[in-house]
């Protein structure tokens, strides 16, 4: 199966990148941009075919490596 993972900064954690992009969009003349937050996105091809087991595995991968749970949250979607 394929797992799609969104990793985002916990709310309240400073996001310098998002801030810089916000500014740049303004300079490029895009109005009405209230906030930009940048995160990471991962696609993982798994041999596992059972959705439940796959989710378990991917959750463990996020906790152990893919997300820095000190400052990041993650969201898993299976396809």
């Amino acid at each position, binding site marked *: 199966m394929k797992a799609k993972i969104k990793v985002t900064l916990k709310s309240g954690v400073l996001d*310098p990148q998002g801030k810089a*992009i916000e500014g*740049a969009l303004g*300079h490029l003349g895009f109005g009405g941009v209230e906030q930009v937050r940048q995160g990471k996105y991962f696609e993982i091809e798994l041999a596992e075919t059972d959705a439940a087991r796959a989710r378990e595995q991917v959750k463990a991968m996020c906790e152990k490596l893919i997300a820095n749970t000190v400052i990041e949250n993650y969201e898993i979607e299976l396809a």
Partner: protein
Amino acid sequence: MKSAVVVFPGINRETDMMLALEKVTGTKPVAVWHTETDLPKVDFVVVPGGFSYGDYLRCGAIAARSPIMSDIRAKSAKGLKVLGVCNGFQIITEAGLLPGALVRNAQLRFVCREVKLKVENNATFFTNRMARGAIVSCPVAHGEGNYICNAETLKRLEGENRVVFRYAEGSNPNGAMNDIAGIANQSGTVIGMMPHPENMIEPLHGKTDCRPLFESLLAA
């Protein structure tokens, strides 16, 4: 030889570049702030190294879309000589002055070290004082200098002799395709390179291998 050095917020090697230009060519370049819309009349402009806008989003992406770059793009179309070094290379590439892209170093680490550069094309404004095939020492200092482009672009770059500098003797520090360290546009008026020649021009730097590059500007 009148030259300008463009300064964006977060650029931090502009003084290194200005010093090198002044020390070797004898004339002090003018610094141009990124909000300017009209580049002063110069023969040659450098986009120096650093971390423009913190390298946020993508290295050089935000700087490439600033007012001064539109003017540089316009003037380079009319033949203005442009040199982009390190972050400058990333900026002019993001700005579409050169093909391809610079991505994370293959080993995923920033690398500051001396490498060997092979001068593949000595017919440019920045290499005419060098012998073709000459091998010089030059430092690199970057985290995203891994040059990539699609197959046909690579074919054209090689075919049209537009690879100006190549990492030599297995010293490729970032995994760049074909050991590419620097390339030129079709007319040879725009050059981008990851290494920092401005940091190897006087005895203090241990070697002066890169002086001839700056001397080339006088002949150009």
